[in-house]
């Protein structure tokens, strides 16, 4: 019964709500969302560049670019996990489209990512990386990432209402995915025999493409298509999951 315009209005108001609630508690909320990946970058820089001595050019830029993107994914997934539970009083009273709640979380965190992009551009200048026309692909890779992260967030947020202890499992899973994705290391460091398994990781091509934009490397359109393909597959899975279980959400809250 809700049309597109109503859904957009609802999404915008929910995103505003997320931002307001977040910044009401602390004005430095936005700084936190930058501080976390920056501190992690410093830790990994010492661990992998100074101690293990990974051979990669512009490693600090490589790390920071990847960790900013990871921060978006991780915070979106963890926050949307409880999006129905935290908005119980909205879900139990009004019949709006439920997918808008996790979507509003992913959009809120996307705004944080976009707001912190200048930090990456400044690093590019410091490391004397050329800005190329490839940067025009930035919105496309953000949209593809959005689809993937929203799809996973939607599935997890529904499942978490049905099984309330999902959060522990997700925290563990996020650790696994973090190290299974080339974020602190490069994809070409993966030994040949593991490459096939690693290729199943839907995050891998996204990080590859994303970082090549900030490192001024050549980009491959086939990677961009790969990202789109896996995002769409996850979206279809999420829609199936949504259709099957969404009617249970209000009564199980």
């Amino acid at each position: 019964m809700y049309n597109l315009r109503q859904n957009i209005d609802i999404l915008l108001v929910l995103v505003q709500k997320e931002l307001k609630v977040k910044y009401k508690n602390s004005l430095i909320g936005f700084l936190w969302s930058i501080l976390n990946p920056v501190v992690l970058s410093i830790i990994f820089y010492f661990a992998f560049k100074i101690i293990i001595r990974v051979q990669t050019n512009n490693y600090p830029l490589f790390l920071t670019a990847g960790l900013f993107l990871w921060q978006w994914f991780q915070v979106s997934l963890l926050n949307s996990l409880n999006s129905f539970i935290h908005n119980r009083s909205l879900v139990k009273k009004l019949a709006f489209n439920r997918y808008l709640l996790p979507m509003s979380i992913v959009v809120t965190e996307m705004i944080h990512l976009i707001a912190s992009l200048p930090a990456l551009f400044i690093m590019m200048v410091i490391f004397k990386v050329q800005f190329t026309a490839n940067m025009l692909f930035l919105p496309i890779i953000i949209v593809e990432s959005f689809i993937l992260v929203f799809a996973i967030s939607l599935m997890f947020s529904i499942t978490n209402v049905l099984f309330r202890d999902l959060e522990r499992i997700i925290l563990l899973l996020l650790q696994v995915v973090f190290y299974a994705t080339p974020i602190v290391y490069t994809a070409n460091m993966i030994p040949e025999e593991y490459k096939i398994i690693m290729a199943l990781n839907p995050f891998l091509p996204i990080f590859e493409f994303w970082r090549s934009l900030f490192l001024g490397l050549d980009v491959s359109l086939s990677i961009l298509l790969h990202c789109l393909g896996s995002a769409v597959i996850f979206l279809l899975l999420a829609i199936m999951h949504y259709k099957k279980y969404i009617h249970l959400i209000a009564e199980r809250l």
Partner: protein
Amino acid sequence: MKQVVVEVTNVVKQYQINQLAAAGIKNYVVGLLQGKNHTKTFNALDNVSFSARQGEAVGIIGKNGSGKSTLLSLIAGVEKPTSGLVEVKARVSPLLELGGGFHPELTGRENIVLNGVLMGIPKSKVNDRINEIIEYSELEEFIDEPIRIYSSGMLARLGFSIATQLDPELLIVDEVLAVGDQVFQKKCMSTMLNFKKNGVTILLVSHNVADIEKLCDRVIWIDNHKVRMAGDIKQVIRAYKNIDQ
């Protein structure tokens, strides 16, 4: 005859309570391995039918836990029936629980926008009406405070003001007015009487029989998850009171 706005036909609502799933994945998996069935089925509504025409006010009475609130949730579209049909041909303005549809950290003003938009009203229209809503609620002094500091009476005022000042088509009121003060309850009653004249359909759950007599055209008595009696107010209320005592 006016158009039927709410049509509930042979509705059954069952809740499946899986004790294992509620206790988490770990217990669920262990339980599956033990091969026991831990699902309990609970009947909240059993073959309930009723309808309401445009401009009608229908009262719903019954003991706590009889299934009234479940019925309203189904009509509001928040939950789905296990079997049977719920047809609603109007935009629903629900007042289902105190503070329902609000976020505690947002201010009264921000909650007006949130609640209105979630009801399906364009944001621009909510913003146009916001002053009327605040004025009706008489909460000017507190409207920019977070609603977690509001008393239950203030929450009821805010909820009722939003639901009524944004052109309701079908107003569902579930007992929330009981916490308001006498003056505000009177104001609510006269607003609802006015709406009725203007073709707004109203479903009112109340334990206050006098309110139902004043406002409603018909009443439905739900007892033990079934419609026990429906129709003329005086008859149904007399029977209801006799059983109660």
